[in-house]
Protein backbone atom coordinates (compact mmCIF):
# COMPACT_ATOMS: atom_id res chain seq x y z
CA UNK A 1 0.00 0.00 0.00
CA UNK A 2 2.73 2.46 1.06
CA UNK A 3 4.78 1.39 -1.98
CA UNK A 4 1.87 2.18 -4.26
CA UNK A 5 1.45 5.64 -2.70
CA UNK A 6 5.16 6.46 -3.03
CA UNK A 7 5.50 5.27 -6.61
CA UNK A 8 2.36 6.96 -7.94
CA UNK A 9 2.39 10.67 -7.04
CA UNK A 10 -1.05 11.16 -8.53
CA UNK A 11 -2.66 8.50 -6.32
CA UNK A 12 -0.77 9.66 -3.24
CA UNK A 13 -1.84 13.28 -3.78
CA UNK A 14 -5.45 12.23 -4.27
CA UNK A 15 -5.41 9.95 -1.21
CA UNK A 16 -3.81 12.56 1.01
CA UNK A 17 -6.27 15.32 0.10
CA UNK A 18 -9.33 13.06 0.29
CA UNK A 19 -8.18 11.70 3.66
CA UNK A 20 -7.63 15.23 4.97
CA UNK A 21 -11.04 16.32 3.71
CA UNK A 22 -12.75 13.32 5.32
CA UNK A 23 -11.02 13.88 8.68
CA UNK A 24 -11.79 17.61 8.70
CA UNK A 25 -15.36 16.95 7.63
CA UNK A 26 -15.70 14.56 10.57
CA UNK A 27 -14.32 17.17 12.98
CA UNK A 28 -16.72 19.82 11.68
CA UNK A 29 -19.64 17.42 11.82
CA UNK A 30 -18.82 16.62 15.42
CA UNK A 31 -18.48 20.33 16.26
CA UNK A 32 -21.81 21.09 14.58
CA UNK A 33 -23.53 18.66 16.94
CA UNK A 34 -21.48 19.59 20.00
CA UNK A 35 -21.85 23.37 19.62
CA UNK A 36 -25.41 23.34 18.36
CA UNK A 37 -27.21 26.57 19.22
CA UNK A 38 -30.74 26.06 20.48
CA UNK A 39 -32.89 28.90 19.17
CA UNK A 40 -31.40 32.35 19.03
CA UNK A 41 -29.93 33.55 22.36
CA UNK A 42 -30.13 37.17 21.14
CA UNK A 43 -33.93 36.82 20.98
CA UNK A 44 -34.05 35.78 24.64
CA UNK A 45 -31.89 38.69 25.72
CA UNK A 46 -33.97 41.24 23.78
CA UNK A 47 -37.17 39.63 25.04
CA UNK A 48 -36.18 40.15 28.69
CA UNK A 49 -35.60 43.86 27.98
CA UNK A 50 -39.02 44.38 26.42
CA UNK A 51 -41.79 45.38 28.85
CA UNK A 52 -43.87 42.20 28.31
CA UNK A 53 -47.11 44.14 27.95
CA UNK A 54 -47.87 41.98 24.85
CA UNK A 55 -49.70 45.05 23.54
CA UNK A 56 -48.91 44.57 19.87
CA UNK A 57 -48.38 48.30 19.24
CA UNK A 58 -45.15 47.46 17.42
CA UNK A 59 -47.14 45.59 14.77
CA UNK A 60 -46.14 42.14 16.01
CA UNK A 61 -48.45 39.84 17.98
CA UNK A 62 -46.43 40.18 21.18
CA UNK A 63 -43.10 40.97 22.78
CA UNK A 64 -41.33 37.76 21.81
CA UNK A 65 -42.23 38.00 18.10
CA UNK A 66 -40.95 41.59 18.18
CA UNK A 67 -37.72 40.40 19.85
CA UNK A 68 -37.42 37.87 17.03
CA UNK A 69 -37.93 40.66 14.48
CA UNK A 70 -35.28 42.82 16.19
CA UNK A 71 -32.81 39.95 16.03
CA UNK A 72 -33.54 39.74 12.31
CA UNK A 73 -32.77 43.43 11.89
CA UNK A 74 -36.05 45.28 12.48
CA UNK A 75 -36.00 48.79 13.96
CA UNK A 76 -35.72 48.86 17.76
CA UNK A 77 -37.84 51.98 18.31
CA UNK A 78 -41.35 50.53 17.94
CA UNK A 79 -42.17 49.92 21.60
CA UNK A 80 -44.16 52.79 23.16
CA UNK A 81 -44.80 51.06 26.53
CA UNK A 82 -41.07 50.51 27.01
CA UNK A 83 -40.27 54.04 25.91
CA UNK A 84 -36.84 55.55 25.47
CA UNK A 85 -35.27 53.60 28.34
CA UNK A 86 -36.07 50.27 26.66
CA UNK A 87 -34.74 51.55 23.32
CA UNK A 88 -31.51 52.64 25.03
CA UNK A 89 -31.15 49.27 26.77
CA UNK A 90 -31.64 47.32 23.50
CA UNK A 91 -29.29 49.66 21.64
CA UNK A 92 -26.72 49.05 24.36
CA UNK A 93 -27.15 45.28 24.08
CA UNK A 94 -26.89 45.23 20.29
CA UNK A 95 -24.12 47.84 20.22
CA UNK A 96 -25.96 50.25 17.91
CA UNK A 97 -26.96 53.91 18.09
CA UNK A 98 -30.16 54.48 20.08
CA UNK A 99 -32.88 56.01 17.87
CA UNK A 100 -35.78 58.01 19.29
CA UNK A 101 -39.19 56.39 19.68
CA UNK A 102 -41.14 55.98 16.42
CA UNK A 103 -44.30 58.03 17.07
CA UNK A 104 -46.15 56.04 14.39
CA UNK A 105 -46.58 53.19 16.85
CA UNK A 106 -47.89 55.33 19.68
CA UNK A 107 -46.64 57.83 22.20
CA UNK A 108 -44.82 57.08 25.36
CA UNK A 109 -46.87 58.28 28.30
CA UNK A 110 -45.14 59.47 31.42
CA UNK A 111 -47.81 58.19 33.78
CA UNK A 112 -48.79 54.56 34.03
CA UNK A 113 -52.41 54.03 33.03
CA UNK A 114 -54.95 51.27 33.50
CA UNK A 115 -58.19 50.60 31.68
CA UNK A 116 -61.40 51.27 33.57
CA UNK A 117 -64.81 50.04 32.38
CA UNK A 118 -67.78 52.25 33.27
CA UNK A 119 -69.77 49.34 34.44
CA UNK A 120 -73.30 50.69 34.19
CA UNK A 121 -72.74 51.40 30.47
CA UNK A 122 -71.23 47.98 29.65
CA UNK A 123 -73.49 45.85 27.45
CA UNK A 124 -71.50 42.62 27.92
CA UNK A 125 -70.38 42.15 24.31
CA UNK A 126 -67.02 40.48 25.25
CA UNK A 127 -65.21 42.39 22.44
CA UNK A 128 -62.75 43.94 24.90
CA UNK A 129 -62.04 40.52 26.43
CA UNK A 130 -60.99 39.21 23.04
CA UNK A 131 -58.78 42.26 22.44
CA UNK A 132 -56.95 42.08 25.76
CA UNK A 133 -53.49 40.53 25.32
CA UNK A 134 -53.02 40.08 29.07
CA UNK A 135 -56.36 38.40 29.80
CA UNK A 136 -56.95 41.14 32.36
CA UNK A 137 -60.68 41.66 31.67
CA UNK A 138 -63.16 39.56 33.54
CA UNK A 139 -66.69 38.91 32.30
CA UNK A 140 -69.02 36.80 30.15
CA UNK A 141 -71.51 37.37 27.34
CA UNK A 142 -74.34 39.72 28.43
CA UNK A 143 -72.70 40.05 31.83
CA UNK A 144 -70.96 43.16 33.04
CA UNK A 145 -67.17 43.19 32.45
CA UNK A 146 -64.49 44.56 34.69
CA UNK A 147 -60.72 45.09 34.52
CA UNK A 148 -58.31 43.44 36.93
CA UNK A 149 -56.18 46.51 37.59
CA UNK A 150 -53.11 44.57 38.70
CA UNK A 151 -53.00 42.62 35.44
CA UNK A 152 -53.67 45.59 33.14
CA UNK A 153 -50.57 46.93 31.39
CA UNK A 154 -52.28 50.04 30.01
CA UNK A 155 -51.80 49.16 26.35
CA UNK A 156 -55.24 50.63 25.41
CA UNK A 157 -55.98 47.89 22.88
CA UNK A 158 -59.42 47.36 24.46
CA UNK A 159 -60.55 50.98 23.97
CA UNK A 160 -60.97 50.75 20.20
CA UNK A 161 -63.19 47.60 19.97
CA UNK A 162 -65.73 48.75 22.57
CA UNK A 163 -69.02 49.53 20.71
CA UNK A 164 -70.39 51.81 23.44
CA UNK A 165 -67.10 53.56 24.31
CA UNK A 166 -67.36 52.77 27.97
CA UNK A 167 -63.65 52.12 28.58
CA UNK A 168 -61.46 54.92 29.94
CA UNK A 169 -57.71 54.92 30.40
CA UNK A 170 -57.19 56.41 33.83
CA UNK A 171 -53.79 57.26 35.33
CA UNK A 172 -52.73 55.18 38.30
CA UNK A 173 -52.44 57.36 41.35
CA UNK A 174 -49.22 57.19 43.27
CA UNK A 175 -49.62 55.79 46.75
CA UNK A 176 -47.16 55.56 49.61
CA UNK A 177 -46.53 51.95 48.61
CA UNK A 178 -45.19 52.67 45.12
CA UNK A 179 -43.82 56.22 45.34
CA UNK A 180 -40.11 56.63 44.62
CA UNK A 181 -37.64 59.41 43.83
CA UNK A 182 -37.27 60.46 40.21
CA UNK A 183 -34.38 58.88 38.35
CA UNK A 184 -31.32 61.15 38.33
CA UNK A 185 -30.62 60.38 34.65
CA UNK A 186 -32.51 63.47 33.53
CA UNK A 187 -30.42 65.03 30.79
CA UNK A 188 -32.12 68.42 30.71
CA UNK A 189 -31.61 68.80 34.45
CA UNK A 190 -27.89 68.13 34.03
CA UNK A 191 -27.58 70.66 31.25
CA UNK A 192 -29.46 73.38 33.06
CA UNK A 193 -28.05 73.09 36.52
CA UNK A 194 -24.53 71.70 35.98
CA UNK A 195 -25.04 68.94 38.51
CA UNK A 196 -21.90 67.13 37.34
CA UNK A 197 -18.65 69.09 37.10
CA UNK A 198 -17.25 68.97 33.56
CA UNK A 199 -14.68 70.77 31.44
CA UNK A 200 -16.80 70.25 28.34
CA UNK A 201 -17.71 73.50 26.61
CA UNK A 202 -21.40 74.21 26.02
CA UNK A 203 -22.32 73.05 22.53
CA UNK A 204 -23.22 76.51 21.12
CA UNK A 205 -19.63 77.73 21.77
CA UNK A 206 -18.24 74.87 19.67
CA UNK A 207 -20.53 75.80 16.80
CA UNK A 208 -19.23 79.36 16.86
CA UNK A 209 -15.62 78.11 16.82
CA UNK A 210 -16.36 75.91 13.83
CA UNK A 211 -17.96 78.81 11.96
CA UNK A 212 -15.01 81.08 12.74
CA UNK A 213 -12.47 78.47 11.56
Amino acid sequence: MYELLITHPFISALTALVALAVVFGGILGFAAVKFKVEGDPIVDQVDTLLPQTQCGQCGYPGCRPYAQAIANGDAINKCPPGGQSTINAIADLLDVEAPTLDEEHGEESDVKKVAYIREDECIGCTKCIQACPMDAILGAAKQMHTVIADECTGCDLCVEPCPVDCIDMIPVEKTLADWHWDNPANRTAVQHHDIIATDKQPSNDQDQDGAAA
Partner: protein
Amino acid sequence: MTDFVVILISTILVNNFVLVQFLGLCPFMGVSNKLETAIGMGGATTFVLTLASICSYLVHNYILQPLGLEYLKTIAFILVIAVVVQFAKMFIEKTSPLLYRVLGVFLPLITTNCAVLGVALQNTAKAHNFTHSALYGFGAALGFSLVLILFSAMRERLAVADVPVPFKGAAIGMITAGLMSLAFMGFSGLV
Protein backbone atom coordinates in the same frame (compact mmCIF):
# COMPACT_ATOMS: atom_id res chain seq x y z
CA MET B 1 14.28 30.05 26.10
CA THR B 2 15.94 32.99 24.34
CA ASP B 3 14.71 31.81 20.93
CA PHE B 4 11.12 31.88 22.25
CA VAL B 5 11.55 35.52 23.28
CA VAL B 6 13.24 36.32 19.97
CA ILE B 7 10.39 34.75 17.98
CA LEU B 8 7.76 36.62 19.99
CA ILE B 9 9.46 40.02 19.73
CA SER B 10 10.25 39.41 16.08
CA THR B 11 6.66 38.56 15.13
CA ILE B 12 4.94 41.13 17.36
CA LEU B 13 7.12 44.16 16.73
CA VAL B 14 9.95 43.77 14.23
CA ASN B 15 8.27 41.72 11.51
CA ASN B 16 4.73 42.70 12.40
CA PHE B 17 2.46 40.95 9.93
CA VAL B 18 0.19 43.91 9.27
CA LEU B 19 2.42 46.94 9.37
CA VAL B 20 5.74 45.52 8.14
CA GLN B 21 4.81 42.54 5.96
CA PHE B 22 1.43 44.03 4.88
CA LEU B 23 -0.55 40.82 5.35
CA GLY B 24 -4.14 40.85 6.65
CA LEU B 25 -4.92 44.45 5.71
CA CYS B 26 -8.61 43.74 5.02
CA PRO B 27 -9.69 43.14 8.65
CA PHE B 28 -7.15 45.77 9.74
CA MET B 29 -9.11 48.45 7.85
CA GLY B 30 -12.52 46.78 8.09
CA VAL B 31 -12.98 45.90 11.76
CA SER B 32 -11.09 48.79 13.32
CA ASN B 33 -13.98 51.23 13.61
CA LYS B 34 -14.78 50.33 17.20
CA LEU B 35 -12.46 49.30 19.99
CA GLU B 36 -14.69 46.49 21.31
CA THR B 37 -15.08 44.93 17.87
CA ALA B 38 -11.33 45.15 17.35
CA ILE B 39 -10.67 43.35 20.63
CA GLY B 40 -13.15 40.61 19.66
CA MET B 41 -11.61 40.27 16.22
CA GLY B 42 -8.13 40.15 17.76
CA GLY B 43 -9.23 37.33 20.06
CA ALA B 44 -10.85 35.35 17.24
CA THR B 45 -7.83 35.80 14.98
CA THR B 46 -5.45 34.78 17.76
CA PHE B 47 -7.43 31.59 18.28
CA VAL B 48 -7.54 30.80 14.56
CA LEU B 49 -3.93 31.71 13.80
CA THR B 50 -2.42 29.69 16.63
CA LEU B 51 -4.56 26.64 15.93
CA ALA B 52 -4.06 26.92 12.16
CA SER B 53 -0.28 27.16 12.42
CA ILE B 54 -0.20 24.10 14.70
CA CYS B 55 -2.52 22.10 12.43
CA SER B 56 -0.73 23.09 9.25
CA TYR B 57 2.60 22.14 10.83
CA LEU B 58 1.20 18.69 11.68
CA VAL B 59 -0.29 18.25 8.21
CA HIS B 60 2.91 19.36 6.51
CA ASN B 61 5.33 17.29 8.59
CA TYR B 62 3.35 14.09 9.08
CA ILE B 63 1.30 13.81 5.89
CA LEU B 64 2.77 15.86 3.08
CA GLN B 65 6.49 15.43 3.73
CA PRO B 66 6.58 11.61 4.14
CA LEU B 67 4.61 11.25 0.89
CA GLY B 68 6.78 13.79 -0.93
CA LEU B 69 3.79 16.04 -1.56
CA GLU B 70 5.21 19.43 -0.48
CA TYR B 71 3.84 20.97 -3.67
CA LEU B 72 0.33 20.44 -2.22
CA LYS B 73 1.04 22.55 0.85
CA THR B 74 -0.86 25.66 -0.30
CA ILE B 75 -4.12 23.83 -0.99
CA ALA B 76 -3.72 21.67 2.12
CA PHE B 77 -3.14 24.74 4.31
CA ILE B 78 -6.19 26.47 2.83
CA LEU B 79 -8.21 23.37 3.74
CA VAL B 80 -6.83 23.45 7.29
CA ILE B 81 -7.54 27.16 7.69
CA ALA B 82 -11.09 26.84 6.37
CA VAL B 83 -11.82 24.09 8.89
CA VAL B 84 -10.30 25.96 11.82
CA VAL B 85 -12.23 29.14 10.96
CA GLN B 86 -15.48 27.21 10.63
CA PHE B 87 -14.80 25.57 13.98
CA ALA B 88 -14.05 28.95 15.57
CA LYS B 89 -17.30 30.30 14.11
CA MET B 90 -19.35 27.51 15.68
CA PHE B 91 -17.48 27.92 18.97
CA ILE B 92 -18.08 31.69 19.14
CA GLU B 93 -21.71 31.35 18.09
CA LYS B 94 -22.22 29.01 21.03
CA THR B 95 -20.17 30.83 23.67
CA SER B 96 -20.68 34.51 22.79
CA PRO B 97 -23.67 35.25 20.52
CA LEU B 98 -23.12 39.00 20.81
CA LEU B 99 -19.51 38.79 19.65
CA TYR B 100 -20.74 36.54 16.85
CA ARG B 101 -23.24 39.18 15.82
CA VAL B 102 -20.73 42.03 16.07
CA LEU B 103 -18.04 40.23 14.04
CA GLY B 104 -20.64 39.25 11.44
CA VAL B 105 -19.16 38.73 8.01
CA PHE B 106 -15.59 39.30 9.21
CA LEU B 107 -15.54 36.01 11.09
CA PRO B 108 -15.78 33.78 7.98
CA LEU B 109 -13.49 36.30 6.28
CA ILE B 110 -10.64 35.23 8.59
CA THR B 111 -10.41 32.34 6.11
CA THR B 112 -9.24 34.76 3.46
CA ASN B 113 -7.01 36.67 5.87
CA CYS B 114 -3.71 36.17 4.09
CA ALA B 115 -1.83 36.54 7.39
CA VAL B 116 -3.13 33.09 8.37
CA LEU B 117 -1.89 31.43 5.20
CA GLY B 118 1.25 33.57 5.36
CA VAL B 119 2.15 32.27 8.82
CA ALA B 120 1.65 28.65 7.73
CA LEU B 121 3.77 29.06 4.60
CA GLN B 122 6.52 30.95 6.43
CA ASN B 123 6.62 28.22 9.08
CA THR B 124 7.46 25.65 6.41
CA ALA B 125 9.84 28.01 4.59
CA LYS B 126 11.77 28.69 7.80
CA ALA B 127 11.66 24.99 8.81
CA HIS B 128 10.35 25.75 12.30
CA ASN B 129 9.81 22.85 14.69
CA PHE B 130 6.49 22.25 16.47
CA THR B 131 6.85 24.69 19.38
CA HIS B 132 8.43 27.34 17.20
CA SER B 133 5.57 27.03 14.69
CA ALA B 134 2.96 27.39 17.42
CA LEU B 135 4.81 30.34 18.94
CA TYR B 136 5.29 31.96 15.54
CA GLY B 137 1.54 31.76 14.86
CA PHE B 138 0.71 33.00 18.36
CA GLY B 139 3.17 35.88 18.11
CA ALA B 140 1.87 36.87 14.68
CA ALA B 141 -1.68 36.89 16.09
CA LEU B 142 -0.58 38.98 19.08
CA GLY B 143 1.07 41.45 16.72
CA PHE B 144 -2.05 41.55 14.59
CA SER B 145 -4.28 42.12 17.64
CA LEU B 146 -1.92 44.78 19.01
CA VAL B 147 -1.95 46.94 15.90
CA LEU B 148 -5.66 46.32 15.33
CA ILE B 149 -6.50 47.53 18.85
CA LEU B 150 -4.09 50.49 18.68
CA PHE B 151 -5.46 51.46 15.27
CA SER B 152 -9.10 51.19 16.33
CA ALA B 153 -8.44 53.31 19.42
CA MET B 154 -6.96 55.95 17.12
CA ARG B 155 -9.87 55.72 14.68
CA GLU B 156 -12.34 56.19 17.53
CA ARG B 157 -10.63 59.48 18.32
CA LEU B 158 -10.31 60.38 14.64
CA ALA B 159 -14.08 59.98 14.26
CA VAL B 160 -14.65 62.99 16.51
CA ALA B 161 -11.52 64.93 15.48
CA ASP B 162 -11.67 68.01 13.28
CA VAL B 163 -10.32 66.38 10.11
CA PRO B 164 -10.27 68.42 6.86
CA VAL B 165 -13.23 67.38 4.69
CA PRO B 166 -11.22 65.69 1.84
CA PHE B 167 -9.46 63.47 4.40
CA LYS B 168 -12.55 62.38 6.35
CA GLY B 169 -13.31 58.68 6.83
CA ALA B 170 -11.21 56.05 5.09
CA ALA B 171 -8.64 58.53 3.77
CA ILE B 172 -7.40 59.62 7.20
CA GLY B 173 -7.50 55.94 8.22
CA MET B 174 -5.10 55.04 5.41
CA ILE B 175 -2.78 57.92 6.32
CA THR B 176 -2.81 56.87 9.97
CA ALA B 177 -2.04 53.27 8.98
CA GLY B 178 0.90 54.52 6.90
CA LEU B 179 2.26 56.55 9.80
CA MET B 180 1.87 53.55 12.14
CA SER B 181 3.71 51.43 9.61
CA LEU B 182 6.56 53.96 9.52
CA ALA B 183 6.70 53.87 13.31
CA PHE B 184 6.90 50.07 13.31
CA MET B 185 9.77 50.22 10.79
CA GLY B 186 11.71 51.76 13.67
CA PHE B 187 11.63 48.42 15.49
CA SER B 188 13.79 46.81 12.78
CA GLY B 189 16.93 47.62 14.74
CA LEU B 190 15.69 45.65 17.77
CA VAL B 191 16.77 42.14 16.80
